């Protein structure tokens, strides 16, 4: 069974929907999306500012125990409005 990876979309994503090869995802602000391919997940994190979370609900606690801030769009400007 493929691993399920949960990613939280930033509050201000730089695009409405993204795709690479046969993988695609809608970036609804602050939603948690589920993907099953690790490389696709890494692309969403690195390119579109998504943050990996432990489960479909809530976000992962940091090592210091404080809640993470909601991820802002740290994506490159490649796909956003110009």
């Amino acid at each position, binding site marked *: 069974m493929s691993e399920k990876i949960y990613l939280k979309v930033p509050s201000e994503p730089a695009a409405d929907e*993204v795709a690479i090869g*046969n993988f695609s995802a809608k970036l609804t602000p602050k939603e948690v999306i589920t993907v099953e391919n690790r490389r696709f997940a890494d692309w969403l994190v690195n390119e*579109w500012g998504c943050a990996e979370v432990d489960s479909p609900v809530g976000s992962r606690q940091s090592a210091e125990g404080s809640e993470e801030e909601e991820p802002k769009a740290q994506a490159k400007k490649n*796909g956003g*409005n110009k």
Partner: protein
Amino acid sequence: MSQTAASRHYAWAKQTDYNTQKAVAAGNFKELIMMDQNFLDYNVNTGDDGDWSTGANTITDQWVESHGNRVQHTMPAFAQQMGELFYMMLGQYAVATPGGGTLSRNHTFKPTDPATTRQNVAVSYLENVGGTGGVHNILARGMVGTGFSLKGSGVSPLMADFELAGSGFMLTDSAATWYPTATPTVTRRTGQHKLFNTQIGVVATDPANGNTTYGCRYRSFEFNYKQTMLDEASISPGCASFLTSGDQTSGAVRSSHEFDRQSLDYTMEVDILNQLELVRLQKQSPIALVLTATGGLIEGAIPFKLVWTIPIAKWTVAKPVVSGGMMRTTISGNALFDFATSKLFDIVLTNDTTTYATGW
């Protein structure tokens, strides 16, 4: 009834993965408007026993080993149809709504990052002569892009030449239906907006000389994106992919078709003005090259638009030529990968298509 060139039809539909053909169902395919009269090149690769010690002085047996197919087309630069071409050729995509827009969308395409995947989107492709029930009805599955050229010259529409390479799987009796059959398999295109060579602007910028806006000096361009493909690896014996499922004697077809290297080269022709292009060539100046085609309005102040940005372009040729009775400069060059922006180039296409990730 006679069939003429006007009887030819083409269509395609995006597959969810390389091996799953798009179902032949109402509205599942979109018409392709092409300028050429090409059709699929299909070949059957065979083996024979001609060199074996059969005791006969000739071939006594011949068998099917694999199938292959490829097609080249030229499409006019319809701002909407072109997005499908860019999506399957380039593979990395994002869509966003521009400020002030409701119908408009900015679609950004760039070459797939091979760190994520080397398998670009495949399409199921239809060819037809004579409409529903006509004399030529083929469906080819697993067609991927090997490259395309976007070009413009004179006062004509822009156009894109491209090539699709298939898995080899092909149906010769597709049940796809076409207009004017009710609820056809293939949806017709309407409201397509053409972009013209007369709407082009080109700007080249290098650190030493700043911007060169070619303006009225601009004459023509051709940008060529190519992907070499992992052809040999794509027919994997262990995958047991055959034209007829489970039947080795029907011949093998590809089970994937990944790309290897990616490259972009370009050519432009501009009226000669000075030696700047020769200086840029000799010094190998890194040039940011931006080509823009601005069409008519979609809504408000938002036009149909194509912006092709090459962050790092270097010239390989810059020489005077006599063209159209005038002295011009022809410029050729390559694009280099820009680590700062993580791209070889990108294309931003602004139109009224909601998304290219689905719907075709």
